C-alpha cells in the first residue's frame, strides 16, 4: 500500500508505527513536501494479513518497529523444552550463559525454532558440565547429533 499527498502529488513517507493493540496497528505517514500527517489504523484482519507475511513494518530497528517478527515464538506454549512449556510443567531450568558469538548465531534461528534450539543446546552443555554456551559448544552439538 502506498499513500499519495494529493495536493502535492507527492508520495508520503512512513514516520512511526505503534505496535498492535487490540488487533490494530497505527501507522503514521507524512508528506515530505507540505508536512501533512495522516495515520492508517488497521483492523484486526488487516493486521493479521501483514503479520501472516512474516514481515515487520517500519525501520529495521527501533522501538516503533512492529509486525510479526516482534512476536514471541507463536508455538512456544506447545513446544516441549521452551520456557512457556516448562512454566506450565512447573520446572525451573538451571541458567546457562551464552557468549555474544553464540547468541548471534542463535539470533539467526527462526523465531519458531529458537526456544527449542536454546533449551536443547543448554541441556547439551549442562550434560557436559559446561555453564556457558559458546560457538565451540554449538559446533560440538552439531557434530554430536551428526548434522
Amino acid at each position, binding site marked *: *500500500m*502506498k*499513500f*499519495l499527498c*494529493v495536493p502535492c*502529488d507527492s*508520495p*508520503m*513517507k*512512513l*514516520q512511526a508505527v505503534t505496535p*498492535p493493540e487490540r*488487533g*490494530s496497528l497505527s*501507522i503514521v*505517514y507524512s508528506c515530505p513536501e507540505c508536512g501533512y500527517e495522516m495515520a492508517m489504523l488497521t483492523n*484486526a*484482519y488487516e*493486521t*493479521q*494479513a*501483514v*503479520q*501472516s*507475511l*512474516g*514481515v*515487520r*513494518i*517500519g*525501520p*529495521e530497528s527501533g522501538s516503533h518497529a512492529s509486525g*510479526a517478527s516482534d*512476536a514471541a515464538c*507463536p*508455538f512456544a506454549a*506447545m*513446544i*516441549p523444552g521452551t520456557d512457556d512449556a516448562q512454566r506450565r510443567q512447573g520446572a525451573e531450568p538451571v541458567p546457562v550463559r551464552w557468549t555474544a558469538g*553464540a547468541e548471534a*548465531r*542463535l539470533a*539467526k*534461528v*527462526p523465531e*519458531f*525454532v529458537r526456544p*527449542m*534450539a536454546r533449551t*536443547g*543446546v543448554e541441556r*547439551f552443555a549442562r550434560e557436559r558440565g559446561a555453564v556457558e554456551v559458546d560457538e565451540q559448544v*554449538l559446533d560440538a*552439538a*552439531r557434530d554430536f*547429533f*551428526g*548434522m
Partner: protein
Amino acid sequence: MKRYQDIVGDGGSRVLEQVAEQRTRITDGLAGVRHLVAVGSGKGGVGKSTLTLHLAGALRARGLRIAILDADFNGPSQARMAGVERALFVPGTDRVALPRTRNGIAVFSMGSLIPESEALEFQSTAHGESHTWRATREFALLGEILGSFEWGALDLLMFDLPPGAERTVQYADFLGPRTSFLLVTIPSEVARGVVARSVAALSNGPNRLLGYVENMSGYYCRDCDAIKPLFVSPESFDTARGLPSGLEIPCLGTVPFDPELARHCDRGLPLAEPADTPGGRALEHVAQHLLDSLESTTEPPDEVPLRPLR
C-alpha cells in the same frame, strides 16, 4: 495525479522489500540443490509420506544426498517415521543445521517441534477468522524454513505435500518452476479422479509433471510370498497389468503395501537399504524411473522461486 506504479518504493513500510529479501534468501539457500521434487496427490491417505520416505531411502542407498521437507504442517508425519521426533535444532554459522536419519537423510518436519498431542496454532489478532489468513501464514512459514535451514549441496530435496488439489497448485506457485511434481494415487476410482484434477490444475502451470506412482497396488503377503489385491480395480486403470490409468502422465511404477515397511515407519526406523521383497524392488524401480525422468530434463527453468512484487 500519480498512480501506484509511478511511485518507487512503499514510503518506508519495507513490506515489499522484506518479501523480496525473503525470496532471495530462499533462492540462495536452495542454490546447491540439484532437483526439487514435490510429492503430492490431491487425495489424502494414499501414502504420500511413506512413499516419500521410502523413495528417499532408496535414493540415499544409491549414494545420493537427499533431504525431505515435510510441508504438511498441520499433519506432519515425517518426524516420527524418519526417527527425528526428538531432534535438536542447532544454530550453524549462518543457518540452522538439519537433523538426519540414521541413514543420513536430512529431515525437517514440524513433528520434531510440536508433539502429536498438540495441533499447530498461530497467534492471531483476527480470532475466529483463520480462513482469511491461515494459508498466507503457512506459506510464510514454509519460506522461513526454506530460507533458514542448511539445505547445502543436495541431489534431491523432496517436499512431502499436504492433501488437496488446490493446495498442490499453491505449492507449485510458491516453489516456482524449478520444482517438479510426482503424484501419488491408489487403485481406486475416487483417488484417481482427485489426482486427475491435480494433473489438470498443474498442467496449466510451468512445473514439470514427472509422472505418478500407484501406491497400495495390492498388499504383500509374506506367508504366501505373493501380492494380493487391496482394491477391486476397474481394468481401465489397472496399471499393475500395464493398462492405462486415465491419468495423462507417465506411470513411474506401482508399489504394493507391505505391512513390514509400514511397521518400520511407525517405529521411526527407516530402512538403510530397500528390502528384497516385491515392495522393496518396486521402490527401486520407481526410484530409477524418477532419476531417469529428472535426468531427461534438459536444464531446469531459471530460478524463479517466487514472482517479484511491485
